[in-house]
């Protein structure tokens, strides 16, 4: 049961334009949503997160939008830069019975920013 889905395995965008990465989820109990960026041979790097009670969070070139009624979130990168080329993972946080949280990841979207 895939609770977090990224339906686009790849996305190609020109430098300077907007990149929009999408993510859908099914579990209403998720309390935070996060985006991670991953380069080959490295671990995922945290980019930005949003609480389930918010609908927008912005940090520099990165903005995450949350539509709870549609169970959909998106990451906007403006302007896109060649260094943004990486795999982007959407993740959702849910509480553990023992008191912490676990992340459920999507399958990732490979972003390529072309000159």
């Amino acid at each position, binding site marked *: 049961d895939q609770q*977090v889905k990224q339906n686009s395995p790849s996305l190609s965008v020109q430098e300077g334009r907007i990149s929009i990465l999408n993510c859908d989820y099914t579990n209403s109990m998720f*309390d*935070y*949503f*996060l985006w*991670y960026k991953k380069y080959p*041979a*490295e*671990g*995922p*790097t*945290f980019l930005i*997160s*949003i*609480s389930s009670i918010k609908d927008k969070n912005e940090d520099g070139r990165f903005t995450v939008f949350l539509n709870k009624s549609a169970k959909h979130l998106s990451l906007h990168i403006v302007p896109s830069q060649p260094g943004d080329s990486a795999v982007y*993972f959407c*993740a959702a*946080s849910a509480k*553990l*019975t*023992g*008191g*912490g*949280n*676990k*992340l*459920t*990841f*999507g*399958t*990732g979207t490979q972003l390529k920013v072309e000159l």
Partner: protein
Amino acid sequence: DAGVTQSPTHLIKTRGQHVTLRCSPISGHKSVSWYQQVLGQGPQFIFQYYEKEERGRGNFPDRFSARQFPNYSSELNVNALLLGDSALYLCASSLDGRGGYGYTFGSGTRLTVV
């Protein structure tokens, strides 16, 4: 400042063997989580530990076990290795394992089972 350190970076094991993977969290972080990433998939939650106590376990067989030491470092153990255990194993460190912030991942251990 040292980030999350995982060792070894790569290893090759034979089916049926046992493996131990190690993780040192960021200084001051008391929680460690383990994730398995199979090729083409997102990371999947295995365990979370906080102050040496297990807080949660993902949908993995009992062949997978872990522990956290007083210095907050952690070990992931896998017994009776199967070909399907071949994956990148990631360790994530955080202050207390809560919320949507501050999960810092290591670069992972690439395990190949032959």
